[in-house]
């Protein structure tokens, strides 16, 4: 049977999505209503449209019924639009003769009344049917992809992603804002549940980064701007002066010994403030690169210019240069892996826990350093008064699962608290009490580790601590810290005197996550962690194509999960740059030449300077490669002379008409 090419022959497919849609929307009724709409030739409902049989049905109908337009009413287009476009294409049609209706996220899942949900579904399908008539055949545009990759953040996630990409032969820029890579993991003593030495497994990877011919490592540096688009990002990196030439310093540390300060004066960041460092320092022995750094906030020379500068004299390689300036580097990359990590909760925000008030209240990070044999106490666990604690309380969920601070579970605190309980018991032989709300030990070997701790005699008290106080009631409490808690399993309140308190602080987004997000043009979820494109199906992708997430910047996770995600992000970036070309959604704008009056309204409105005014011809022109398809110019064009593919005026008017005009 022959059909006129311009006569719409529309196929409508209404998906049950199991009971996800069909449980609320009467899908058969929707399909029946659609069948009566003008232009609709085929209308069906089906259990799972995204399944092979569902897609096959579309292809077969295109062939059998000479369909030239397809509408699928199922889930969000952000999930399956591509799936159905491909099915449409396999059926022999241009894939853009397709329109998707969101009956799940926008209808069945959010409405309670079946009649209202069904009515809404019919309206939305009608809108799509009216819209799809105006669809046109479009070609995807392809652009070349720059083969290099940028990794932002040099913790374990960034390190792993960078190595994975570099090993695959890609050139990688690894940008880290601290003077060394290593991130939080470098500060841990052991890792749970295997009790591997964190440094033993991390430092070889740090060295590999430094040694890898494909990795350009820029520490003490920030990404200040990102422009461009998938496959073609332009990145500006600011390299702060460390007053030491990286190419000359060999990490002999003579300069540190030579500093006019004979003792450390500045709280040592790496040791969570437990130790002191000098203004010229190396963060920790295995720091990578092995290059000292001058802290401009405490160095007399930098601050006043007046110092004997003994460090300069001590360096026989002339690596210390106080006139070093910041450097701006501009690079081009095809993909970006964001691995900017997390910060720990500031426990002083919960004054009941006495951090900063009582001497022997510590954060978990401080204890990590305290039990570490290369830490400030060389692995000795000592109270401020120099004695060894006889009893220690570890308080879980500090700044987690709390509406007043952070609502989320930080995922790692239970396990690291168990680890610290083990290490503290091992180091001191003290009675250790863990105060928890729930123990979350869901990981390989985690529950077994919990078993082991119980066997080791660690006390587990299920209750959230209300207060740590020096208000004492009994002689045994005198001079100690009293933890007040309900033993919820026993059903009464207990007072437990301890010598030392460890606050298991939760994980938070980095303080400047919002700024980083703006620079990268990616999204944040409510709590401030970067948002993945889809929580299940696109966990490392972002809403900005070509930018991927790894590690705790996306949400709290432990080391195995972080490394796994970093691998996934690296693989996704690799898949992109390795293909060499990327298809862009053809939703760009274009000027209808003969209709343009050259009024120039559009030119200044384009945020990507994709529109130029051709003086010669007196008309505007859109550069398709620069256009990102927002449609602002289309809406603003006073004479309707700009069109946007996939979002044409007629298509949108068709949708409006469809949802409102009850046929």
């Amino acid at each position, binding site marked *: 049977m022959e059909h006129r090419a311009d006569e719409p022959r529309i196929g409508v497919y209404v998906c049950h999505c199991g009971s996800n849609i069909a449980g609320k929307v009467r899908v058969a009724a929707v399909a029946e209503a659609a069948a009566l709409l003008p232009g609709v030739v085929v209308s069906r409902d089906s259990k799972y449209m995204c399944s092979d049989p569902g897609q096959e049905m579309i292809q077969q109908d295109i062939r059998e019924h000479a369909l030239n337009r397809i509408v699928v009413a199922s889930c969000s287009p952000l999930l399956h639009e591509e799936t159905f476009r491909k099915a449409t294409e396999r059926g022999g049609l241009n894939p853009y003769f397709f329109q998707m209706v969101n009956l799940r996220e926008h209808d069945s899942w959010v409405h309670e009344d079946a009649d209202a949900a069904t009515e809404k579904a019919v309206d939305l399908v009608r809108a799509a049917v009216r819209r799809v008539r105006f669809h046109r055949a479009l070609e995807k545009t392809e652009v070349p992809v720059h083969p290099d990759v940028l990794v932002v953040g040099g913790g374990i996630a960034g390190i792993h992603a960078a190595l994975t990409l570099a090993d695959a032969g890609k050139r990688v820029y690894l940008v880290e804002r601290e003077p060394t890579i290593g991130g939080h993991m470098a500060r841990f003593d052991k890792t749970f549940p295997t009790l591997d030495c964190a440094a033993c497994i991390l430092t070889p990877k740090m060295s590999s980064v430094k040694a890898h011919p494909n990795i350009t490592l820029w520490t003490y540096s920030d990404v200040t701007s990102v422009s461009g688009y998938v496959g073609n990002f332009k990145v500006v990196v600011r390299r702060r002066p460390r007053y030491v030439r990286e190419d000359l310093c060999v990490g002999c540390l003579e300069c540190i010994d030579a500093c006019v300060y004979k003792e450390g004066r500045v709280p040592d960041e790496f040791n969570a403030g437990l130790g002191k460092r000098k203004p010229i320092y190396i963060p920790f022995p295995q720091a990578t690169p092995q290059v000292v750094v001058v802290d401009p906030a405490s160095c007399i020379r930098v601050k006043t210019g007046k110092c004997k500068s003994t460090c300069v004299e001590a360096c026989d390689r002339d690596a210390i240069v106080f006139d070093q300036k910041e450097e701006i580097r501009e690079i081009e990359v095809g993909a970006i892996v964001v691995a900017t990590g997390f910060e720990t909760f500031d426990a002083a925000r919960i004054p009941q826990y006495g951090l900063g008030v009582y001497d022997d209240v510590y954060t978990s990070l401080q204890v990590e350093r305290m039990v570490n044999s290369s830490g400030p106490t060389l692995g000795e666990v000592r109270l401020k008064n120099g004695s060894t604690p006889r009893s220690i309380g570890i308080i879980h969920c500090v700044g987690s699962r709390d509406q007043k601070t952070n609502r989320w579970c930080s995922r790692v605190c239970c396990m690291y608290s168990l680890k610290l309980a083990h290490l503290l018991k091992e180091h001191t032989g003290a009675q250790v009490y863990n105060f928890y709300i729930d123990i979350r030990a869901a990981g390989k070997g985690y529950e077994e580790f919990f078993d082991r701790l119980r066997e080791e005699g660690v006390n587990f008290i299920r209750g959230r601590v209300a207060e740590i106080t020096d208000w004492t009631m009994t002689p045994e409490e005198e001079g100690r810290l009293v933890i007040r808690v309900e033993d919820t399993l026993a059903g009464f309140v207990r007072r437990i005197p301890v010598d030392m308190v460890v606050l298991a602080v939760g994980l938070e987004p980095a303080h400047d996550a919002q700024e980083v997000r703006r620079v990268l043009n990616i999204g944040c979820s409510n709590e401030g962690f970067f948002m993945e494109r889809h929580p299940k199906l696109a966990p490392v992708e972002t809403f900005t194509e070509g930018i991927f997430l790894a590690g705790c910047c996306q949400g709290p996770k432990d080391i195995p999960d972080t490394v796994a995600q970093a691998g996934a992000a690296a693989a996704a970036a690799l898949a992109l740059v390795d293909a060499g070309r990327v298809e862009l959604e053809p939703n760009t704008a274009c000027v209808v030449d003969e209709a343009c009056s050259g009024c*120039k*309204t559009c030119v200044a409105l384009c945020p990507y300077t994709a529109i130029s005014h051709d003086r010669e011809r*007196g008309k505007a022109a859109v550069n398709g490669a620069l256009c990102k398809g927002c449609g602002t110019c289309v809406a603003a064009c006073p004479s309707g002379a700009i069109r946007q593919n996939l979002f044409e005026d007629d298509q949108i008017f068709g949708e409006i008409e469809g949802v409102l005009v009850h046929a």
Partner: protein
Amino acid sequence: MPEKPKIAFYWCASCGGCEESAVDLAEGILGLLDAVEFVLWPVAMDFKKKDVESLADGSITATFLNGAIRTSEHEEMARLLRRKSRILIAYGSCAHQGGIPGLANQFSREEILRGVYDDSPSTNNAEGVRPRSDHREGGFRVTLPDLHNVVRSLDQLVPVDYSLPGCPPTPKLLGEAVRALLAGTLPPRGSVLAPDVALCESCPRKDSKPTDLSYQEFRRPHRVALDPATCFLAQGIVCMGPATRGGCEAPCIGGNMPCTGCFGPTSRARDQGAKALSAIASSVEPTDDAAIDRVLDGIPDPIGTFYRYGLARSILRRKAGLPVDPREAR
């Protein structure tokens, strides 16, 4: 000798300017008089309604109807001429878009009558006399056309074959239309007989408009000394040129006044005012509500500015809350 094409001219709610534009054909009109036969032209020749009624349906080759549809008489005549004509041309802004009379769609019929017969400062009407469509006194019956509630463009009443925009249309466009009519070279029915590109294309000040325009304030033409060579928008003066069909030869611009939009939108826009608003508001400079509002305060009458000629045929047509007043019994 074949019969000459029969032509009618008629006016509904209009100022007479459109009729004047036909006269502006000047000597061209003589040729026209040779080429066609007028069957109705009340402003120039003495025909009666019954003359038209007596014609066979479809016997008029073309009717040029100007003015908006405002009264029952307009309605009746428009229907009559539609029936008798093979081609009906909405002539001028009022027939095309509703025109200036269309601005009355912001008011109810009662408000208008009150304004004209009671409240206007020059009116002395202590008895409160209002025109009545059917009045009997002393055995005499006097009738008047009835005032509609809503002002309409011609195509909102009867199907229109062509529109010739302008307030008034230019002699050039009229001449071209008549030539095409006589030569049988009219474009497809439904066309607007003017270029389909906005006025800026042919604006003499086009080159003076910068590409990075953004508005920090709007000014009104009667309050400032206007630079005679620079784009009005660049001077902060609202100009409808970018949203208005060209073909008028820019006489307003020549007179150092901004375009007010009489040629209506291009074929790709559904609502001239909306498009003009979109273009202009997009380029307002501030980014917060209060500051944006301060800039927009410079356009105190958005309807009169963006819909001076097009309100009746805009998407919203008429102020929503207005009642439909009962009309006089016929």
